[in-house]
C-alpha cells in the first residue's frame, strides 16, 4: 500500500468520530514513526480542514514528530522530583554517552534522546523510559545496562 493509501485508511477509520484529528495523528505516527509532511495535506483534505489547522495541531504537541526518530528512543525525565534525586547527572551522562543533546539523534540513527516532563515514577526518581520500558532509581550504570540490553 502506498504511503498515501495508508494515511487515507487511517483517516477513514476515525473520521466518523467526534474530534478525530489527534487520534488520527497518533495512528499515523504509530505507522510511520512520525507525521510525514505528505500526511498533512491528505489528512486536511479528507477532514475538510485547512493544512494550516492540521499543521498547527501537529506542531503544538511535543509528542508528535515530523521526522522519524532513531531506532531507539531514550526519554529522560527533567522534572523537579528527578532533579531533586540527582537527575541532572543522568541527563549529562546520557548526553555524553551519545554525544547529542535533547531532541537529537545519533549520527548512525541508532538513538534519539528526548526530555520528558514527568513519567509519574517520582517516588522512584530519577526516572527514564527506553523504547517504552520504564526505569526508576536510575544510575549511570543501570541506564547503560538497559541501553546495552536494548541495542544489542
Amino acid at each position, binding site marked *: 500500500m502506498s504511503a498515501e493509501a495508508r494515511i487515507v485508511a487511517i483517516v477513514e477509520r476515525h473520521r466518523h468520530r467526534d474530534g478525530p484529528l489527534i487520534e488520527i495523528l497518533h495512528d499515523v505516527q504509530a505507522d510511520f514513526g512520525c507525521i510525514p509532511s505528505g500526511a498533512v495535506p491528505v489528512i486536511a483534505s479528507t477532514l475538510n480542514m485547512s493544512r494550516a489547522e492540521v499543521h498547527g495541531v501537529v506542531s503544538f504537541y*511535543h509528542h508528535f514528530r515530523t521526522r522519524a526518530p532513531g531506532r531507539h528512543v531514550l526519554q529522560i525525565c527533567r522534572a523537579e522530583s528527578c532533579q*531533586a534525586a540527582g537527575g541532572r547527572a543522568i541527563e549529562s551522562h546520557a548526553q555524553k554517552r551519545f554525544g547529542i543533546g535533547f531532541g537529537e539523534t545519533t549520527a548512525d540513527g541508532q538513538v534519539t534522546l528526548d526530555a520528558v*516532563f*514527568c513519567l509519574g515514577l517520582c517516588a522512584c526518581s530519577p526516572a527514564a523510559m527506553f523504547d517504552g520500558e520504564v*526505569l526508576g*532509581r536510575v544510575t549511570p550504570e543501570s541506564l547503560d545496562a538497559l541501553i546495552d540490553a536494548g541495542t544489542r
Partner: protein
Amino acid sequence: MSVTAWVPRDAGALAVGAQATARKLQSEAKAAGVDLTIRRNGSRGLYWLEPLVEIECAEGRIAYGPVTEREVPDLVAKGLLKGAAHRLRIGPIEEHPWLATQQRLTFARVGRIDPLDLAAYRATGGYKGLARALELGPEATVNEVLESGLRGRGGAAFPTGIKWQTVLRQPAGQKYVTCNADEGDSGTFSDRMLMEGDPYALMEGMTIAGFAVGATRGFIYLRVEYPHAFKVLASVLSTAREAGLLGDDVLGSGNSFDIEVRLGAGAYICGEETSMLESLEGRRGEVRVRPPLPAEKGLFGAPTVVNNVITLATVPTILAGGAAAYRDYGQAKSRGTLPLQLAGNIRRGGLVERAFGLTVRELLEDYGGGSQSGRPIRAVQIGGPLGAYLPASQFDTPLEYEGLSAIGALLGHGGVVAFDDTVDMLEMARYAMEFCAIESCGKCTPCRIGSVRGAEALAAISRGEDRERQLVLVEELCDTMLNASLCGLGGMTPFPVQSAMKHFPEDFRLRTRGG
C-alpha cells in the same frame, strides 16, 4: 505444595524490576517443585520496598521487599514461599506502620486486588455506590456529593457537587463527563497508581457522575506518558461492557453510559480543563476564556463535568458509605482524605492517604524518614511545577487547602517533592520559568513572553550579570504573569519563582563562580 504470590504490575514497580522478579520467582518455584500462582496487583505505594512480593499465608499476606531478581534464589532457598524469616521480610503488609497509620478510602483496594478482576472489585464493595445512586436518583446523588464536602483533587479544589449541580441544571440533551487524567505535575502519581491499581473505581465514579448529571458519554483524557495505565483502562472498559456495567442498560437500570479513552500528546497545558477540552476535540490545546464555564458549554459546546481521576474515583466510596462518613474525615473546609504523594530526595517515598491536616513535617519525617541522601531537607515543593517552595521554617503547616493558601502556597494535586541542602534555588526558579516557556500554549502574551524573559533574567543573575536590575525585572514579570495570564500556567509560574526568592534570598545573591 501450592502457593499464591502477589507481584505488582504498577509502572513504578516495573521501573525497578518487578517483571524480572516475577519471572525469576516462577522459575525458582518450579525448580523447587512448588506449584506457584503469581497474581498481579497495583502497588501498595511503599515504593522504597518495590518490587514488593507478598506471599499468601495463614496469617495474611506476608511481604518481602525490595525483592530484586538477584535476591530471588536466596529468598526461595530460605523459605520465602512459606513466609519464612529473611532480612527482606517485612511481615504482614497491612500491619506495616507506614500503611496501618493511613486512612485509605480512595486507595482502599489498590495493592490488595488484581485490578483487572471485576469479581474482586465487586466483592470488595465495588458498584455499591452506583447501586445506591440509582436508588437515590440524580438530584439526591448530586446532593450526597455536595454534602460530602468533596473538592476537586486535580488542584483547583472547586466543590465537586456544585460543578455537578450546574451540569444537572442545564437543559436535557447531550452532556458529557470527562476525566482529566493528564497528571503532569512532577511529584504526583496518584492518578497513575489508581488507574493501574483500581481502574473500576474510576469507571464507577464516572458512571455515577453520568447518571447524576444526565450524561451518556464519558471521556478519559489520558496522558501519553502513561502507556501502562492505557492498557489497563482499555482492558477493563471492554470487561465492563461485557458485564453490562457500561452500555445501553447500565446495571439493568435502563440508563445508558459509555466511556472512551483518548490519549494526550505530551502537552502539560492540557491538564488545564479548558485546554483539555480543546485537545479532546482534536485541536491545539489552547486555553479557552471563561465564562462560559465547561459546566455550561464544555466539550463540543455541551454541558460537561470535568473532574480529576482521584475526585471521580472517590465518588463510589462517598455514595456507598454516605456523605457524612466521608465528611467526618478532615478539617474546616478540607473534608475527607487526600492521597499525598511523597517524592524527590526522600528515603521512603510513596502514597500516603490521610485525612487533611497532616503537617509537612509529619509527612517528611514520620513517613518519608528524611532525605534519601541523608542530608537535611532544605526545601519542598508542593503542588507540582506551579507550586510554591517551602523552607524548613514552614514545615509545620498543615496539608490542607486553607492552611497552605494562608502562607501563599497551594496543595494542588497533593505532590510533595523534597530537596536536600545541595539544591540551588536560583536554578529551580530559572527552571520554573523555562518549564513554563516550554509548555506555554502561546495564546496569551504574559505567559508566552514573560516566561522566556524570566528564564533569561534568572540565567543572567546566575552568571552575575546586572544582578539588581534583573531581579527587579523578574519581580515585574512575575507581577504581570500573575495578574494578566489567561490560565494557571502563566498565572502560577510566579509561585515557585517568588517563593524561592523570598525564602532563599541567599541563593540569589552575588556568588563567586567556580568557588
